[in-house]
């Protein structure tokens, strides 16, 4: 796409993204409110004792005594003003709560994503180039293996091997608390903690990208323009890099956009296994505790991430592929 058309393209995509997010907000609200069990009874249960007055107080405080459409209107209005509400259970603004947890999730999913894409595309390209040979077989088998293994199980096994038996890497948390590390030492410390969870989360998607890259590269290799390149004497290495890989990456980009949501979902499992302080675990805990504002906030936040990510991949796609005008 030509750069001059970019602002219009972006504006259209943004409008669409906002509409999608709005729909998600409304749907999530109804979904979560369809759940039995209201936050007041949960809090009462966890306080260890309760009486009807206490319950009544809590319900009023949470606005649970209002009619549903009023609750929805209040929620949508506040989301539009970027106020995600207040978690009465946590006694904190939801936005603040999520903001605290978000960096950890972004770090984890970002690292896993980078690992998966870079590793997957490299392995996939390698396999496609050596199709039918042992390297291809090995990569294919490995990819299938990671593809077929439950994510959380991989996490458990990695912990078993690297933390329990070898004692090389920490098995949980995001940093060593109490050591007062700063600067580079802190970064290294976090990196050490990040390694296993990112690996766990990334392996499955690495397999996905490896398989996808291999398949699309094989497909692109058969296309006419590759034959043209060959006919004009372009060396094989350059054909792979400049012609095949670039075209094969287009579906990978599309797929990465779709995968963003799955990655956030997968991080719930990984964050649970590795005690990673991110929003995936926050969501699961909020669900168990029926903390509606937090749950709605996390859903809102993840869908915004996914929508933004889709937007970014669309943009990337549009920049890579000149054929995209509007779609």
């Amino acid at each position: 796409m030509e750069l001059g058309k970019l602002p219009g393209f972006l504006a259209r995509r943004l409008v669409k993204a906002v509409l999608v997010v709005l729909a998600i907000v409304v749907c999530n609200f109804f979904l979560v409110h369809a759940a039995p069990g209201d936050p007041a009874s949960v809090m009462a249960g966890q306080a260890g004792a309760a009486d009807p007055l206490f319950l009544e107080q809590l319900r009023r405080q949470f606005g649970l005594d209002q009619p549903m459409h009023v609750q929805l209107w209040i929620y949508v209005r506040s989301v539009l003003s970027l106020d995600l509400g207040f978690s009465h259970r946590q006694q904190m603004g939801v936005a603040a709560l999520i903001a605290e947890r978000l960096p950890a999730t972004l770090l984890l999913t970002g690292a896993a994503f980078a690992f998966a894409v870079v590793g997957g595309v490299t392995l996939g390209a390698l396999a496609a180039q050596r199709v039918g040979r042992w390297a291809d077989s090995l990569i294919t088998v490995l990819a299938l293996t990671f593809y077929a293994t439950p994510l959380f199980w991989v996490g458990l096994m990695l912990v078993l091997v690297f933390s329990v038996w070898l004692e090389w890497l920490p098995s949980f948390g995001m940093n060593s608390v109490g050591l007062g590390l700063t600067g580079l030492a802190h970064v290294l410390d976090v990196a050490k903690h990040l390694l296993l969870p990112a690996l766990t989360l990334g392996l499955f998607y690495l397999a996905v990208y490896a398989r996808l890259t291999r398949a699309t590269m094989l497909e692109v290799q058969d296309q006419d323009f590759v034959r043209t390149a060959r006919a004009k004497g372009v060396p094989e290495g350059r054909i792979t890099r400049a012609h095949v890989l670039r075209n094969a990456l287009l579906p990978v980009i599309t797929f990465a956009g779709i995968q963003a949501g799955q990655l956030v979902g997968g991080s719930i499992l990984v964050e649970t296994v590795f005690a990673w302080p991110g929003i995936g675990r926050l969501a699961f805990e909020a669900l168990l505790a029926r903390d509606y504002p937090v749950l709605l906030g996390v859903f809102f936040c993840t869908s915004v991430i996914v929508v933004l990510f889709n937007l970014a991949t669309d943009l990337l796609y549009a920049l890579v592929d000149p054929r995209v005008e509007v779609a």
Partner: protein
Amino acid sequence: MTIRRRTMLAAAPALTTLAEARAQGVAPRRGGTLITMLTPEPPVLQIGVNNQGPTLVIATKMFQGLLSFSPTLEPLPVLAKSWTISPDGRVYTFRLQENVKFHDGRPMTADDVIFSITKFHPEVAPRARAIFALIDNAAAPDAHTVVFTLKQAFEPFLLMFDGSAAAIVPKHLFDGLDYRTAPAVQRPVGTGPFRFAEWQRGNFVKLDRFEDYWKPGQPYLDSIIYRVVPDSQSRRLALETGQAQLSQANDIEPFDVPALRSRPNLEVALNGWEYFSPLAWIELNHRVAPLGDPRVRQALSMAVDRNFIVQRLWFGIGRPATGPIASSSRFHDRNQRLPGFDARAANALLDAAGLRPNAQGVRFTIKHLVLPYSEIWSRLGEYLRQAFRQVGVTLELESTDAGSWARRVGNWEYDTTINFLYQFGDPTLGVERSYVTSNIQRVTFTNTGGYSNPRVDALFAAARSASVAAERQAAFSDVTKLLIDDMAQIWLMEMSFPTIHDRRLRNVVTTGLGVHSSFDDVFLTS
């Protein structure tokens, strides 16, 4: 006073540890950071606003009550240095420590105490509301004396003054504000030996030594860090590798305890829960046929092998229940026991109740709402399903989340479930609520099962108003017998929680509140 002696014996190991430490001449060492764990992460750390287990564990380091309790539940001075009770049992006079400061530097006075007891806790905590409603008048003759006059005598009144039940909060930070949303809720300010330093949600809570703490030279530790570790295996690993020096409550799964017990660097204590005395039972909804029939309840009770549960499921952490009142609690009658495990007798009882097995050998089918707090309850449900099958009863498990569990139990929408309640040292405080007719309410932790017996109601009422311990003992013994005969609920076990700590950490469990004490005397040897 047989009860007292029993609990004293039970608490003996803790006392020996302390004595040993002193005897070995290990002088308390100042300095060091204690890293411990936390699960689940509490929503807020302001005691009262939230009274969940994890909140109590942290908040009791920052807040203190007037009293604490020994393993035999004798009152110990904390913020109150002495107290007197009038002969008619209605007037309680506390003399306060004089140089106590809040973490913000303001002195603690009788005003703060009266505010905490008569305003703050009754507003935010239902349990305090019920009992402090008995206070007719609260007065402060001087800045360091508080006098509470009760409407009627209430023998267990002192038990309410522990830091976990009625911590003293700063009046100047709450008065006139909504207590639940006051700024101080986010940065708790108390009188305890440690003050709030940092909370990275999902990661850790850090408490630092309060330099102006009223006990000179104490506390010994520089800081305490509570790491949030949601996975039990990670917690175990943290203990083993020394990344954490202390675990408490249900941090460590029972099946991991034997392995940890054998580690030379770790010490496992099972005491320190005398004040709470949690008791677990199968909660039956008496409104659901045929659970309203006492013979059926008796039969189900006999179908359960409590020793198996304690040994196999809890790996010996805990004791089989003997009745509605825990054996570590006051007024437990050790002469009364539950009928033993006897499947044959159970079958006979069910036959007698007219519940004949059908062609598949099934007498009736009931549901079981699995307690969602830890997966051990799922194992228990799976055991119960197999156990009840032996007597022709099919148990269908329903799994649920904490929210639904609380709602369904509160609304009586269940057949059976597991419930466990703290007894707070005294049956009037912790047992009565589950059996009296007046407390049949659509709220969790009331008499949700719907058991009702006028004689039981009368006996609990008598025990409540009697001011003499012996009179109360008699009433509780009678109530115990009635409840066991009716098998009001199927009591399973007296729960214990292992407190596991590094051997270099000293004075961890010294009172009946265990890890819920202030830790001002806890220290790390080098």
